[in-house]
């Protein structure tokens, strides 16, 4: 009950922010919401199932490219978004089938290599994909349910609705029986195998759900901000969701949002000191791993707020 109230309160606060924020932060917050959807996908794989992937940029960028190319060829935004969702799921299924034969460090390297190969392929077929420069999506095509997504208000609303749906879906997932079996994989794979669960299919399902989130996040990013390109397939876009999840708290439902929001604020605040976010990302990663491996909400949950979902 407390958990339900908390989730609804967070969504209500986000909706209120849509009316209160000044224009600059308005756009930034819409970006944070979309990246939080991506991070929720990563959280399902890493936070709950314990699969540390370094290749989620592949699913994010696949969703974005599928959606963007479809829109360039004249498909409407709604079906193109669904295409992006599917692209995220299909790439996760394909790479998962192979990568899940490995575990631990090998799994990280294999996912990293798949993402790298995908990024290079996007550059190689630059004539079709736009390569590193990418291409803008025409403003006229960026309409969803009659809303003009080039405007700040509708853009924020669509980002919030998407985030709300994915957040509640994540909460439903991790409190379901299936969600418990995901956590069992993270905690002790051998023991859950003994109890009759199939680790391979369970983890594959987690990866596909994770890929679907990444795919829809990538597609939404393209539609909402009007630009798609291979630069979203670089390793940095695999590191970012990991960073958000680690910061907010791996295996907590609200951790991805908190991490994405805090990181955006940190990079914005530090932009007066340095001209590039690289150092901020680096220091945060090291600090988290050394001092707070559970992240913010994970630490709070350990320190007494046991009901925190």
């Amino acid at each position, binding site marked *: 009950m407390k958990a339900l109230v908390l989730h609804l309160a967070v969504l209500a606060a986000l909706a209120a922010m849509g009316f209160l924020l000044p224009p600059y932060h308005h756009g930034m917050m819409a970006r944070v919401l979309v990246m939080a959807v991506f991070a929720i996908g990563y959280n399902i794989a890493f936070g709950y199932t314990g699969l540390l992937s370094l290749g989620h940029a592949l699913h994010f960028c696949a969703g974005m490219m599928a959606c963007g190319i479809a829109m360039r060829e004249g498909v409407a935004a709604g079906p193109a978004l669904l295409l992006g969702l599917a692209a995220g799921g299909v790439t996760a299924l394909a790479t998962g089938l192979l990568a899940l034969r490995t575990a631990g460090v090998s799994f990280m390297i294999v996912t990293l290599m798949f993402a790298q190969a995908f990024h*290079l392929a996007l550059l190689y077929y630059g004539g079709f994909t736009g390569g590193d420069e990418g291409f803008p999506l025409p403003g006229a095509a960026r309409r969803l349910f009659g809303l003009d997504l080039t405007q700040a208000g509708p853009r924020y609303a669509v980002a919030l609705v998407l985030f709300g749906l994915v957040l509640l879906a994540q909460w439903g997932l991790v409190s379901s029986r299936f969600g418990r079996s995901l956590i069992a994989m993270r905690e002790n794979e051998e023991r859950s195998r003994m109890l009759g669960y199939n680790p391979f299919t369970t983890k594959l399902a987690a990866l596909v759900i994770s890929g679907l989130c990444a795919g829809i996040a990538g597609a939404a990013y393209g539609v909402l901000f009007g630009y798609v390109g291979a630069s979203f397939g670089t390793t940095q876009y695999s590191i970012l969701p990991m960073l958000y999840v680690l910061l907010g708290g791996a295996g907590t439902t609200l951790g991805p949002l908190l991490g994405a929001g805090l990181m955006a604020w940190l990079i914005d605040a530090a932009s007066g000191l340095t001209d590039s976010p690289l150092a901020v990302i680096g220091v945060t*990663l090291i600090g988290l791993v050394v001092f707070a491996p559970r992240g913010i909400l994970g630490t709070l949950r350990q320190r007494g707020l046991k009901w925190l979902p």
Partner: protein
Amino acid sequence: MGTGPLLLLATLEGTVMAAVLALAAVGLSLTFGVMRVVNVAHGEFYMLGAVLAWAVAQAVPSAPLGFVAALLIAPPLVAALAWVTDTTLLKRLNYDPESTIVATIGLSYLLQQGALSFFGPDARPVAAPFSLRLQFPWFGYSGYKLFVVLAALLVLGAVWLFLRRSKAGLVMRATQVDRNTARAFGINVDRVYAGTFALGAGLAALAAVLVVPISQAHYLMGHDPLLLSFIVVIIGGLGSLRGTLIAALIIGLADGILSMLYPPTLAKIVATLAVALVLVFRPQGLFGAPAR
């Protein structure tokens, strides 16, 4: 130029590539073999070597002296930085494989930013110590590149001798086989780890100093060597030194020859996919023994 000379040129380029790659990859292979950690910042140690070489060469007026000074100063500096990283960061993480990867990703961002802030975004050259040109009937070839191959062979030979013949090498190998038993025999495992990490980083920096007169120093130059070193170490079998050398030769030559015939991006795509598949279907690498 006919096919024969072209192939000769490609083979020469490939050999140079293989030599540099072997140096860089042996460092990565050592840290993985002995410490069981994957150092994502390895490419940044390589980059630091090149950038420091440029800084040293700037400070010394004459070109040959500048290069020699860089060769003597840059790798130990990078090794010292790696030593500090190990004792202050990796040791605190207990060398947990996954945390170490995340921490070294953070470190690589930090080092990149540091190089960008202090060195700037431009690529900068270091003059070669000599400008001998070997004249083949069809084309001239830089004598310095062949010197790089020779130097790499010498260093690799020294590393091999160090591991096989010296007391420190024996201690390192003992730690690789069984850390706890090594500790029980009074080996200071912490120091072995710090030393291994420093040695690996120093080798990467050395490779970079050698390469900097051929290609230039740049703050993002660590990316490709990291990827290629990963590929070499994995194909050769994680932790197997001999496999690493063979793989470096194969990958270097293949890269030299293939990138003359095909677009380099395509060659890279094939190589990265090959690595992923090797890890999936033959995790011990092509030359490694199956895990016991």
